[in-house]
C-alpha cells in the first residue's frame, strides 16, 4: 500500500456500477468517493456508507485483508485496559481506569459531559506531554503504544485531530504537510517528495475535503476560523492516512455544509481495516458516520457502552436519562 503514495490518483467513476455491498478498491484516493449529495434521503446515505469499503490509502497500512467484508470479526486494533493518567504538572488524576477495545473497521463514538476526560483520553493515546500515564496498558496493532514516542505513534498509523489545533506562525500549511508526508516516506524507505511531486500528490486530497488551495500557503492554522481549522485537521488525515483516527469534536464549530463535507471525507477514509474513534456531543455527526458503539464517559471512565440508540436517548433526555450500565 505504500505504493499508493507514488501513484497518480484515478477517478473511480465506475463506482455506481458495482454491487453496493462489497466495494473493494485498491490504491484509491479520496477523490474516488462519490457519496450521494445532501439532497439524498438519509437512510440511503447511511446504508451506502455502511457498505462502502475503500482500501486505505495510508502509506503505512501493512495489513492486507482484502476481501474481508464482514468486519464483525476484525482483528483488535486498539486495546485499552484500566488506563489511568494524571496531569503531569499537578498530578491531578483525570483518567480513572478506561477500558476500550476497537477492532479493525469499526467506528466508535465517545460522548460525555464537558470536562469528563474525553480529550484527555484522546491526547494520552497520542502521547501528549501534558499527561502522565500512571497505570493500565494500551496495545496498538499488537504493540505497546505507551512505550512509543508521539511521532512513532503517528508513523505507526495512529492519528488524532485536535479539538483545538495550535497555530504555527511562520510555517506554511503546505510545508508542514510536506514534512509530515516525507517523514512517513522516510520511514518506508522511500525518497522524499520534492515540492512539485508533493503538489501532485496533494491536490486530490484537497479536493476531497473541499478545501481551497489558498489555505496551503497560509501558516498552519494561523487566523483560520474554527471550522477551517477542523477541515484542515481532516486534510491532514486525508494526506497522511491512518489505521486508527481519533477525531476530537471534529463537528463542533462547523456549519451544515462544512459538517457534510468533513463527514464525507471521513467516510471516504473508512476501509475494512481501519477504524475511527469520534468524540462528539451531537448526534448530527453520528448520522453521517454511523458508529457501531457509543461510549459514555464520566469522570475519567467509560460508564456505559451501547449502540447508536444511546446517542438518541441523550439527544432527547440529556445525560440524566442515561443510567450507567
Amino acid at each position, binding site marked *: 500500500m505504500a505504493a499508493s503514495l507514488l501513484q497518480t490518483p484515478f477517478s473511480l467513476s465506475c463506482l455506481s456500477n458495482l454491487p453496493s455491498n462489497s466495494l473493494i478498491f485498491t490504491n484509491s484516493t479520496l477523490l474516488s468517493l462519490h457519496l450521494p449529495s445532501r439532497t439524498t434521503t438519509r437512510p440511503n446515505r447511511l446504508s451506502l456508507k455502511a457498505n462502502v469499503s475503500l482500501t486505505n490509502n495510508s502509506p503505512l497500512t501493512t495489513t492486507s485483508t482484502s476481501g474481508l467484508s464482514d468486519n464483525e470479526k476484525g482483528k483488535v486494533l486498539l486495546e485499552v485496559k484500566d488506563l489511568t493518567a494524571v496531569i503531569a504538572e499537578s498530578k491531578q488524576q483525570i483518567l480513572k481506569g478506561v477500558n476500550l477495545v476497537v477492532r479493525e473497521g469499526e467506528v466508535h463514538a465517545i460522548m460525555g459531559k464537558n470536562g469528563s476526560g474525553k480529550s484527555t483520553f484522546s491526547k494520552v493515546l497520542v*502521547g501528549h506531554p501534558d499527561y502522565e500515564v500512571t497505570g493500565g496498558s494500551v496495545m496498538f496493532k499488537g504493540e505497546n503504544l505507551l512505550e512509543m514516542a508521539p511521532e512513532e505513534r503517528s508513523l505507526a498509523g495512529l492519528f488524532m485531530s485536535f479539538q483545538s489545533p495550535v497555530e504555527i506562525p*511562520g510555517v506554511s500549511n503546505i510545508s508542514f504537510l510536506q514534512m509530515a508526508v516525507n*517523514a512517513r516516506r522516510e520511514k518506508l524507505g522511500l525518497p522524499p517528495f520534492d515540492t512539485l511531486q508533493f503538489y501532485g500528490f496533494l491536490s486530490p486530497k484537497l479536493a476531497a475535503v473541499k478545501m481551497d488551495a489558498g489555505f496551503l500557503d497560509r501558516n498552519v492554522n494561523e487566523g483560520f476560523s474554527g471550522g477551517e481549522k477542523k477541515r484542515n485537521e481532516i486534510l491532514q488525515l486525508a494526506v497522511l492516512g491512518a489505521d486508527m483516527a481519533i477525531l476530537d469534536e471534529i463537528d463542533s464549530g462547523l456549519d451544515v455544509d462544512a459538517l457534510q463535507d468533513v463527514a464525507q471525507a471521513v467516510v471516504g477514509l473508512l476501509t475494512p481495516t481501519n477504524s475511527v474513534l469520534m468524540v462528539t456531543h451531537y448526534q448530527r455527526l453520528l448520522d453521517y458516520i454511523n458508529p457501531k458503539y457509543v461510549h459514555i464517559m464520566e469522570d475519567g471512565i467509560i460508564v456505559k457502552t451501547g449502540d447508536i440508540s444511546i446517542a438518541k436517548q441523550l439527544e432527547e433526555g440529556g445525560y440524566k436519562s442515561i443510567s450507567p450500565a
Partner: protein
Amino acid sequence: MASSTFSSPFHLHRLTPTSPSTPKTRTKLNLRHTSTPTLLRATLSDPLVLQIAETLEDSISTLSSSSSPTLQKLRDTSSESLLTMSWPTRKDEQFRFTDTSFIKHSQIHPVSNPIPTSKSDLVALSADTQFPNLLIVDGVIVNCLSPFGGLPGGVFVGPLSSVSSEVISKRVLEFVSEFHDGDLFWSLNGVGAPEVTVVYVPEGCRVEESLYLRFYSSENGDVGSNYLPMSNPRVLVVVEKGGEIGIVEEYLSGDEDKCYWTNSAMEISIGEGGKVSHSYIQQQSVNAAHIKWTYVRQESSSTYEHVEVSTGGKLGRHNLHVQQVGPDTVTEMSTFHLCVHDQTQDLHSKLVLDHPRGSSKQLHKCIVAHSSGQAVFDGNVKVNRYAQKTDAGQLTRSLLLEPRATVNVKPNLQIIADDVKCSHGASISDLEEDQIFYFSARGIDSNTARRALILSFGAEVIARLPSDSLRKQVQNHIKGLLNPASK
C-alpha cells in the same frame, strides 16, 4: 515606560564641526597635539586608540587616491573626535553587555593591500545576482567597471574619487560625516576608510531594481594567530526629494576559519518624500568581528525601511541611529538575530523624533541557540517635545534554546511630547511545547520541528526582505546554520 537616559561617555566630546571651507591639513599632529580649547579639556586617554588611529592613517596615506575635500572633512572630524575616546569597557552603558576585548587584545592591522584576491574569485562573487551590484573588498570597490544598466540616468553609484558632477560633489560634502553622536568605531572608520562609496539618487528619481552592495574581507588571520586585519568600508547614500532606492547591504563570510574585523559605516540622507528600503544581511565568518554603523537622516514625509538579518561574526554589533529632521516621516525597523555559535549579536538602535506626526515601527527578534551565545538589544525611541502625534511601536521577542544562552534586551521609549501613541512589548521564551507536539503528532521528529519553528520565528522579519531571491538566499543560509550536516 520612559526609562533611563544613558550617559554615554561619547557625549563629552561634542565638537563644533570643522568648517568644510577651511579644511585642516591632515597630519598625525592632529592626533597628538591640539590647540583648540575644547580639546584641551579632554583627556588624551587611550594610547591603544591613538596607536590604531596612527596605523590607520599610515595605511591611508600609502594609498594613491588623492584627497578630496570630502575625504579631508571625514578624516579631520574623525581624528579630532578620536582624541577624546578610549576603548569601551563593560562600564560604558553602550557596551555593558557587549565584550569587545577580544578585538582589543588582538594585533590589529589595517588591511594593507585592498585588492589581493585573484580576479576570478571576485567575478564568482559578483556574478550570482541579476541586480546591479558593487563588490567592495576590504572597503574598496573592485568591480566599478560593471555597467549599471539597471540604473536610471542621473543616478551615481561608485567611488567618491570618480564623482564628476559638481552638484553631487557638493551634496556629498554636505552630508559626509554629518553625524556627531558616533562612538569610537564610527570615528575609527572615518579615519581608516580608504574611500567613500557614493550612492546618489537625484530628485524625483525612482530606482526600480535594488542595488546590491556586497562586502567581502580578503585579508584575514588564522584562528589563534592573534592577527586581526581591519577594514573600514564606508558608504554614503544621498536620496534627493522624492527619490527612491532599495539598497541591499550584504556582508559575506569568506573562509569560516579566518579572523578579520570589518568596521563598517553607512550614512543615509533621505530628502523630502523620498524613500529608502535598506536590507542589511550579515553572514560573516564566525571568527570575525563585525562592527557596523548606520546613520539615517530623514526629511519630512520620507520613508526609511530597514530589515536586518544577522547570523555571522564572533561579535556582530549594529548601531542604528535614525534622526528625524522633518514631520510626517515613516520609519520601519525589523531585525532578526540568530546565534548558533559562541557569538554575540548586538543591536543598539536609536530613533530621535523631533517633529510632529512621525510614525515608527520596530520589530526585533532574536534566537540564541548556543549555551555561550548572547543577544543584546538596546532600542531607544525618543519622542521629543515637538514630536506631537507620533505613533511609535516597538516589539522585541527572544527565543532561548539552550540552558545558559542569554539575551539582554532593553526596549525603551522616552516620551517628552504629550500627545503621542506609543506601544511596546518584550517577551523571552522557549519554543512552544504545544507547537512541537503538533509536529510530533503528525510524525515529524522534534529536531525537524525545532528547525522549522526556528525558521518560522525569523520568517516574520525575513518576509520583509524586498525580493524573493534574497529571502530564499537568507532562508537557505539559516537552514544551513541550523543543520550543518545537510550543508
